[in-house]
């Protein structure tokens, strides 16, 4: 039950750092409100687990501060920070029963047995573990074990934040859905700050109110799922989120005009200046349509997913994917594309030009 703030946080696993690549995390600033559900989204190795372990206190950052409710807690141990963390692989205490597993964090904090009993039964009820409370924990299936891990994180009512480190990796797909909605439900019930790390966009977008996208140790964008989809601030967000991802094409900027494949196109922003090394235009496949004029392309293939068609086309400077309605007629051979102006953005050195 706390606001989590990260200020100028950087971390490196090396003793000396010579280039950006030596940093696992670079200059991270975050404000997470009390009671929010947040997701940290990014590919493997982007530093999201490192960031999580820094917040929980398992790793001491090289630079920067961590604040809970505006109090600096950088030097405190995980116990003193009073957070809960659930790991990628279920961690259970083999020799204990399910009940004892759930009671363990409370017993370590010397809470009276009667209180523990009430709390454990309440959590077991939520996670549908009541019928197995007296069983040995080691006998359960992977999802049962992960539920215990979740339960141990949720059982303490006074935690500052609950953190999840890709907790559904080892769970079967159909159980994933159930557990994920369970988590969402729990968040609404207990209303505590939850931080959820994942590389799966569906998980992040369904769980969180605010998604933080990480790329090579940096935060590239924070926003609601809709923001991330409709206005990616970095080309990485564009192609990491969405299926298929955003089309990114090289462009030239001449004065105030954006030129792709020799054609002037309209984008969302007004371009005032350009001193970038690399300039690109990004547009999602959802926001491209066939037209009588525009960017000339060659249609390569059409695949029908049932709900919609995905069309692969080739332009002078690269491939462009288009999503069209299942019922739409697709021209063959040469065609022309029109980009929806509001959803077409110009990027300078991978960052959106404001």
């Amino acid at each position: 039950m706390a606001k989590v703030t990260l200020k100028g946080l950087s971390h490196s696993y090396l003793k000396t750092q010579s280039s950006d690549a030596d940093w696992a995390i670079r200059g991270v600033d975050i404000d997470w409100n009390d009671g929010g559900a947040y997701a940290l989204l990014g590919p493997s190795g982007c530093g999201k687990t490192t960031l999580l372990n820094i917040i929980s206190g398992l790793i001491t950052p090289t630079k920067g501060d961590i604040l809970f409710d505006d109090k600096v807690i950088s030097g405190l141990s995980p116990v003193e920070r009073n957070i809960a963390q659930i790991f990628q692989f279920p961690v259970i205490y083999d020799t204990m029963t399910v009940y004892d597993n759930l009671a363990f964090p409370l017993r370590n904090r010397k809470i009276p047995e009667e209180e523990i009993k009430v709390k454990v039964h309440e959590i077991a009820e939520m996670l549908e573990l009541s019928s197995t409370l007296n069983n040995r924990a080691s006998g359960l299936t992977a999802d049962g074990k992960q539920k215990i891990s979740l339960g141990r994180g949720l059982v303490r009512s006074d935690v500052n934040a609950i953190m999840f480190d890709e907790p559904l990796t080892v769970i079967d797909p159909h159980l994933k859905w159930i557990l994920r909605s369970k988590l969402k439900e729990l968040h609404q019930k207990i209303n505590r700050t939850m931080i959820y790390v994942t590389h799966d966009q569906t998980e992040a977008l369904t769980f969180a109110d605010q998604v933080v996208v990480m790329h090579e140790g940096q935060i590239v964008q924070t926003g609601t799922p809709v923001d991330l989809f409709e206005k990616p601030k970095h080309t990485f967000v564009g192609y990491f989120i969405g299926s298929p991802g955003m089309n990114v094409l090289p462009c030239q900027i001449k004065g105030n005009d954006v030129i792709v494949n020799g054609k002037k196109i309209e984008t969302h922003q007004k371009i005032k200046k350009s001193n970038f090394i690399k300039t690109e235009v990004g547009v999602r496949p959802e926001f491209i349509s066939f037209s009588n004029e525009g960017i000339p392309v060659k249609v390569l293939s059409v695949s029908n997913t049932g709900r919609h068609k995905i069309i692969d086309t080739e332009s002078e400077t690269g491939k462009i994917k288009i999503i069209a309605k299942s019922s739409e007629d697709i021209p063959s051979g040469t065609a022309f594309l029109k980009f929806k102006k509001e959803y077409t953005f110009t990027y300078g050195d991978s960052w959106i030009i404001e």
Partner: protein
Amino acid sequence: MNKTVNQKAWFFVIPVFVLVAFNAIIPLMTVVNYAFQETFGNNVFMWEGTRWFKQIMLSERFHASLGRQFLFTFIILFIQIPLGIAIALTMPKEGIGVPVCLVLMSMPLLIPWNVVGAMWNIFALPDIGFLGHSLNALGFDYNFTQQIGDAWFTTILMDVWHWTSLVVLLSYAGLRSIQPAYYQAAEIDGASRWAVFTKIELPKMKKVLTIAILLRFMDSFMIYTEPFVLTGGGPGNATAFLSIDLVKMALGQFDLGPAAAMSLIYFFIVLLVCWVFYTLMMRNEAKQ
């Protein structure tokens, strides 16, 4: 799917059968032969039935050496297992310390058994040995060749020195296989160091510890060379463990019948204890 019946395949089993026959079955059958018969040489045998077995089972001497054997084995297990785990827990987990510790730990295991016996014999001699002389200089009345307590003390110390490393290496391997997430979760759950040890480390080490206890039980129960070189079973019969007593009977007194019967009883005790121990340890596993 039906399997084809082809009895010719048995021919392929013959080489293995012959090998096993020569290195195990035939020698064992010789012992069985002696155990049920009396011989005065010249390949003349007389049937004695279970006489030697009865004699051994009722003999005070056998009871005494069996008692000494169990006492010795329990003492060294009681010292080596906890000590081995304790050392493994304090060993470094990364860096240059790891190979250094591993090599140092393996050293005693690489020394031939009779050399270990000879080393400790000289080391412990009361007049010239470093250990014996030092103890006497410090005011202890120490003489392992004369005093029963000192002989036991030296034998146990030698075995602990020689074999604790095995327990250390097995425990260390078990400890290293524990995922870091377990320690992190325990830290977040607020577990004490003792709780981490009893709730995570010990349960995760259970399998390797079962193997360590089994190996140390079998080896110490069949121990021969080291005490033979160190004390020769003395003073008197004070450190004459089962195998030392057995060799005395078979080769010293040339009582082949009783010695053969004793070998078989010895063999069955080892088998029985190992089986009972293993079944008990694994029964819990099956329940889970």
